[in-house]
């Protein structure tokens, strides 16, 4: 219901903002020439129009709006789909959904096989004249048996009666469907069960399968009857009576053909192959699915009547299907119905939101980890992470040993080792965790090291011929290689844990930071450096106080670019290997074809990217307000 109101509100917003935009355009129409950039300023109503249009399209094509307005429709359409499904075996034999009669197709295909047999026989020079004559006769018999199936002259009257019976039953079903009373009063227990089903899209079973409405029950009942009719139709085979006599004679003749006897192995093999081929074609003809078209016409007509009836019985449902569920329909499977088309691969915004809240719930999360939450961690554990154990090895002396009484006398070396390994009581502090945090941490760590090493090297390359000459070829050699091309190598060397990904991101960020810091350093005005020199600044002071701040605009732009590239690389790297991270979540969802989770991760990544960029813009405005004004 909320979605329904939202949909109308969004539509209204689009229309309003278009009218408002036009009004603004009319009242502000002051410049006579095209191309004034001032015209691109403001215009928040176009933001409303843009965002609302996207939301309207999303709600519409994901069928979310349709579901909101016609919550029953899917259940009814599921019953319709059941009928279609049960009628399908019969319909497939007639040119209703296909272009040709099944019999026409079979005649064409088997006719082609027989023609090929004839060619093969003509080319079989190994065989004796007698063999060839006999085999040719068998093939000719086969062709005539097949053609006889298509002729009303040879049809067994029982078969004809059975086909007419099928047509009658279909016609009766059509009549019943046209009757409002069909299928009679509902079984209360059945109805209760049906009404207790979870709604459309509320569980993994997308659409409630049991009929909930009168119209639904009609189609559901019809589908059951149709299923029985289709089953009986499937049993009818045009291989009795006169046809049977022909087929039996044929079978006897080719089975009696002497394969062995008085010939070398090659001839025997050839005979065997030909007979096997004949046997195959015989079995298809014996299947008896070719009928005279004039005999099956009644069934075809009955099916057309049924089709018309069921379409008229659907009534408004067909309009809802066409308008509210664009780009697809609902189809029935073995045990459940599902959406087909854009409703399937484009998740509904409300479902996506539900998935997002579900994944964001720290108790549920995804694959043993929440999206973003915190856990209480001892402070000592964090020190353990940052202080390497070998620090303790550097302290002179021996690690403490126990004495004869089993007592351990602590010394400084031992204490330092305890600190380095986090082996001491410490207060618990909340530490963020989860897929989003893991990804974020990797990006930030890679970026941090990239800046830490890249900026000094970039500045040095901007200032020193040695650094430029020495490092330029190295960096320019590895930089153009797509980061993902490095991924398999780096992930193999460092393992699929954080180290490998951080190193990969470091490589990405490093090159970008080197280049931007270098551009910044070489862009310093010589007069500023001269001024600093004559004001008594040393070389180190000039780098720190003049060249570094002067390069800040380029460095910050570099960081902004690096964040974007790192983020893209990380998600791909997480898809390649890993057990946490937002890219990992998406990859698992891909394997499970869980469109909602895929879209959820896409939206999370978009929002995080937006957050990074807004943050960087803010930092840039705060730290380098002089940019472009110096």
């Amino acid at each position: 219901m909320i979605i329904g109101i939202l949909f109308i509100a969004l539509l209204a917003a689009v229309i309003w903002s278009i009218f408002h935009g036009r009004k603004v355009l009319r009242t502000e129409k002051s410049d006579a020439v095209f191309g004034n950039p001032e015209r691109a300023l403001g215009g928040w109503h176009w933001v409303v129009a843009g965002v609302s249009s996207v939301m309207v399209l999303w709600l519409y094509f994901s069928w979310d709006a349709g579901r909101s307005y016609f919550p029953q429709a899917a259940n009814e359409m599921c019953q319709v789909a059941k009928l279609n499904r049960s009628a399908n075996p019969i319909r497939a034999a007639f040119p209703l959904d296909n272009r040709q009669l099944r019999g026409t197709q079979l005649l064409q295909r088997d006719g082609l096989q027989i023609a090929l047999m004839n060619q093969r026989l003509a080319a079989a020079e190994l065989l004796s004249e007698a063999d060839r004559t006999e085999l040719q006769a068998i093939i000719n018999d086969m062709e005539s048996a097949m053609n006889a199936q298509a002729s009303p002259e040879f049809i067994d009257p029982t078969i004809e009666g059975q086909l007419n019976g099928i047509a009658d039953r279909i016609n009766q079903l059509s009549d019943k469907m046209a009757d409002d009373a069909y299928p009679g009063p509902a079984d209360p227990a059945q109805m209760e069960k049906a009404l207790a089903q979870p709604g459309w899209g509320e569980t993994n079973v997308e659409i409630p399968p049991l009929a909930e409405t009168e119209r639904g029950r009609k189609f559901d009942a019809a589908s059951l009857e149709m299923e029985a009719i289709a089953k009986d139709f499937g049993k009818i085979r045009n291989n009795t009576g006169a046809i049977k006599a022909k087929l039996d004679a044929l079978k006897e003749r080719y089975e009696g053909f002497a394969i062995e006897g008085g010939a070398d192995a090659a001839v025997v093999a050839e005979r065997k192959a030909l007979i096997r081929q004949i046997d195959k074609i015989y079995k298809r003809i014996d299947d008896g699915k070719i009928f005279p078209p004039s005999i099956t016409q009644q069934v075809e007509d009955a099916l057309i009547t049924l089709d018309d009836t069921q379409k008229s019985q659907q009534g408004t449902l067909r309009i809802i299907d066409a308008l509210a569920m664009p780009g697809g329909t609902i189809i029935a499977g073995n045990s459940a119905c599902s959406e087909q088309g854009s409703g399937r691969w484009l998740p509904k915004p409300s479902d996506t939101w539900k998935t997002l809240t579900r994944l964001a719930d720290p108790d549920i999360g995804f694959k043993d980890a929440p999206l973003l939450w915190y856990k209480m961690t001892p402070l000592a554990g964090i020190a353990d992470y940052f202080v390497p154990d070998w620090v303790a090895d550097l302290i002179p002396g021996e690690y403490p040993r126990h004495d004869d009484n089993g007592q351990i006398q602590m010394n400084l070396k031992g204490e330092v080792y305890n600190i380095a390994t986090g082996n001491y009581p410490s207060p618990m502090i909340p530490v963020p965790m989860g897929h989003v945090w893991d990804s974020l941490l990797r990006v930030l760590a890679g970026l941090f090291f990239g800046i830490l090493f890249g900026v000094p090297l970039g500045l040095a390359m901007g200032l020193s011929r040695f650094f430029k000459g020495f490092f330029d070829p190295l960096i320019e050699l590895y930089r153009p290689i797509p980061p993902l091309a490095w991924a398999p190598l780096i992930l193999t060397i460092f393992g699929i844990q954080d180290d490998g990904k951080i190193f990969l991101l470091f490589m990405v960020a490093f090159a970008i930071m080197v280049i931007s810091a270098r551009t910044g350093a070489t862009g310093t005005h010589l007069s500023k450096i001269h001024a600093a020199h004559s004001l008594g600044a040393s070389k180190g002071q000039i780098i720190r106080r003049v060249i570094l701040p002067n390069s800040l605009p380029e460095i910050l732009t570099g960081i902004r670019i690096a964040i974007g590239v790192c983020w893209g690389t990380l998600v791909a790297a997480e898809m390649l290997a890993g057990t946490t991270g937002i890219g990992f979540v998406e990859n698992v969802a891909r394997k499970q074809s869980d469109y909602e989770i895929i879209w959820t991760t896409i939206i999370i990544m978009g929002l995080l990217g937006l957050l990074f960029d807004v943050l960087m813009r803010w930092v840039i405005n705060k730290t380098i307000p002089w940019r472009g004004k110096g």
Partner: protein
Amino acid sequence: MSDLIADKVNMVFTTPTGGKVHALKDVSFTLKEGELLSVLGPSGCGKTTLLNIIAGFNRPTGGAFYLGDHEISGPDTERGMVFQQGALFEWLTVAENVNFGLRMKKANKKETARKVEEWLEIVGLQGFGDTPTYQLSGGMQQRVALARCLINDPDLILMDEPLGALDALTREKMQSLVLKIWKETGKTIMIITHSVEEALLLGERLFVMAPRPGRLHKEYRLPFAEKGVDGDMRDIKNSAEFAQVREEILTMIWDMEEEIMGKAEAA
């Protein structure tokens, strides 16, 4: 005594194509402590090269400059420099720009703050200490540059077309400021300019340089700077004496320019 002595200074640049450009040839002069020197010449006569060598940014290929008792071998706080565009550090505020030199020397912070106030007042920028420099007008930026240079108490102040980018009105005010500072501090000041009027007003002594090779062409001793300290600039400019010297120098420079053009056409 910290006179500036030029001893047969030569500067030859090698162009990328292997040619030689004689930017300065046998430049010799002595600038006494407290003198105000302006240097004038057509473009390409080596004015800026001369200044850069005195500042210590370049080394001459022959000869040497001496300031007081030692040879100039690199940039130093004893020689302050004011650039055409100010060359301010736009990431710092006015006060931070002015105290840059003292911070580099890690001077006492209280003392520094006091000096900054003092100098901002002298150049007429009291109250602008916390303003970012990119918000200042061109004239104000040049005042900051002056204060930044003078706070270091240099023996010699070098100015490279310091007022070139300013509008006429601001320029006149700045010219008075330079004269005031010269008189009050008694510093040796060397100004490079391409404005004849400015050279006459801001030069106790005036060198006219000639190009190809860059050399000192003529020296004047002028009374206008001394008069300008207290007198009205406009009156000085309107005096017959001023007009006569101005015309003489202008003709001289025009002749040089024409000679250059002639040379260029002959080549």
